[in-house]
């Protein structure tokens, strides 16, 4: 029982740190491998607010997301915008370049060591039920993840903004013809993706640690989730994350010899069975 709970929590963490990438890659069709850099930014903002300014955790997390979003907007306006029409490979080159710069900058300003980070007391520890030990922070992550998933799904599928955004991606010219401000829709979406990255980064420090090599260290995990879930699909990302988390944790408990193989085996098998991802749009490029 505890294993299932832990698996769900691990999956939810995967979802939180990669859903931002699913938004930019899937909705905007932009391969933003600098996603991890935005997450790292959120992480540092949160860790520093906590340790140096004494800001409470629950306030520091939204600030971290907001700062990431703000930086995202600035970069979108100045740099990213020029590359919407570029090939995916150029986007990869560009965003890896940004990653390198972010890594060095973090190294320069904050040093190479792990950042100290402590959760507030009310999020620590476990609640012991019969047959089930519930980690409080894990429960917190699951809660936030579910709220986000529902919120995002609603935003993209049922609001006017979501409709405008989908129209802008599918056919920018027609969308512009209909009076949709395509540039603004993209900027907002990019800000959303960055905010989600920052949020994931801030919430993830407890379990992932935080040092300057963060952006490249976890890039593989982000990509796995997006590929398995089908890009641009919130529901797909969520289910894929939860599945991967469960398989990973259960595998480590019952079959520790399999070690790191398991997650890759699962990914490859799933991609062979469903090459477009769990809920991928076949029309997506």
């Amino acid at each position, binding site marked *: 029982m505890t294993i299932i709970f*832990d698996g769900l929590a691990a999956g939810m963490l995967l979802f939180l740190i990669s859903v931002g990438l699913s938004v930019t890659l899937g909705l905007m069709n932009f391969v933003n491998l600098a996603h991890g850099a935005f997450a790292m930014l959120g992480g540092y903002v949160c860790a520093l607010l906590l340790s140096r300014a004494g800001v409470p955790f629950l306030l520091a997390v939204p600030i971290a997301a907001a700062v990431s979003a703000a930086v995202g907007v600035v970069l979108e306006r100045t740099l990213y915008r020029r590359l919407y029409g570029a090939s995916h490979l150029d986007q990869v080159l560009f965003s890896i370049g940004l990653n390198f710069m972010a890594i060095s900058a973090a190294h320069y300003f904050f040093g190479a060591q792990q950042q100290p980070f402590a959760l507030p007391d009310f999020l620590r520890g476990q609640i012991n039920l019969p047959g089930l030990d519930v980690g409080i*922070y894990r429960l917190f992550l699951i809660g936030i993840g579910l709220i986000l998933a529902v919120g995002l799904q609603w935003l993209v599928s049922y609001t006017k903004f979501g409709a405008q955004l989908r129209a802008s991606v599918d056919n920018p010219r027609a969308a512009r013809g209909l009076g949709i401000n395509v540039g603004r829709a993209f900027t907002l979406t990019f800000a959303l993706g960055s905010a989600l990255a920052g949020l994931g980064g801030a919430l993830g420090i407890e379990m992932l640690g935080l040092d300057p090599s963060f952006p490249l260290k976890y890039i593989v995990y982000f990509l796995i989730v997006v590929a398995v879930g089908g890009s641009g699909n919130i529901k797909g990302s969520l289910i894929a994350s939860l599945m991967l988390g469960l398989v990973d944790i259960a595998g480590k408990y019952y079959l520790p010899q399999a070690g790191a193989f398991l997650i890759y085996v699962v990914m490859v098998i799933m991609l062979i069975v469903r090459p477009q991802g769990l809920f991928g749009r076949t029309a997506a490029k």
Partner: protein
Amino acid sequence: MRQLKSSIAAAALAFFAAAGAQAADLKIGLILPMTGPFASHGKQITNGIKLYLAQNGDTIAGRKVQLIIKDDAPGTSGDVSKRNAQELVIQDKVDILAGFSLTPEAFAVAPIATEAKKPMVVMNAATSSITTKSDYIVRTSMTLPQTTAPIASWAAKNKIKTVYTIVADYGPGYDAEGQFKKTFTAAGGQIAGEVRVPVNSNDFSPYLQKVKDTKPDAVFLFVPNGPMGIAFMKGFQERGLAQAGIKLIATGDLIDEDVIDAIGDPALGVINSFHYSEAHKSPENKAFTEAYYKAYPNDRPNFMAVAAYDGMRLIAEALKKTGGDADAEKFIAAARGLKWMSPRGPVEIDPATRDIVQTVYIRKVEKVGGKLQNIEFDQVPEFKDPGKQ
């Protein structure tokens, strides 16, 4: 006028004297990961070296020291390390190769040291067999079995009968696991279970759950220092394993001064064996740590900085004996059997193996003046690397 003349004469004399005594610069080539996941290693090691030079002057046996740093990040790719060593030898014409934070760096460069006949001072890499890879290697850090065996003997002596071992799933992890099991079972202990965790795992919940279900007296942990250790200790606390009566024992690299603050309070009470603690009580260490904080107020001195500091000291002492001659044969002959008082305690270069002999301490993490420290309470003096016996 006469005054001026004499002062000119004095200046000229001083100038010529200096020029006459001035031998060629002593070039030391450092091969270290300065960027990437092990960037903090490079930082601590260069800190240690520069601190020694700042304290003792940058002239050794009449030769001015010149450091040439090569980044071979990530430090795990032998080809880059080897290329850097070749360049240092051929292009920069260094006299001594030093640094080497990770084992592959040392393994890849060892043949160059042999072929180019350059002394090679290993300042961190801890695989036991490194010093056997070239006759010109001398090590000032530690070996993995050297820091692992004492905690196993200590555990067996202190009412810990069953231990669950958790190690990272890679070479050094296997070595630590093997050494711990060997020493612990020889002393009458029992292994309750063992598991190898993929490198870069950050969620230990399934393993900790299994430990909790097995109920051993203690868990022995060995993982590369950094996020893995931090995640483990946080999980250990979250799951209340300490309250369930399970102790955590480890080697000290897991909670060295560079990561201990990032772990925070969950580190309290961890018992570990290691050769250096910032809290080591000795006049040498007091002087060292004070100077370190003065030079690098944002960092805490750790074992890598000390090993590098001692490495520089070894170079200086050996060259004093050879009269500034860095010829590999002479240098190594001078280094064999050198003894000095390091900030970590008394150390000696084993004349037979060129490896370091030092006191290994058993410590417990406590809070001293609001700062987490490893407090030493037991020790194994003059401990040689058991991996070579």
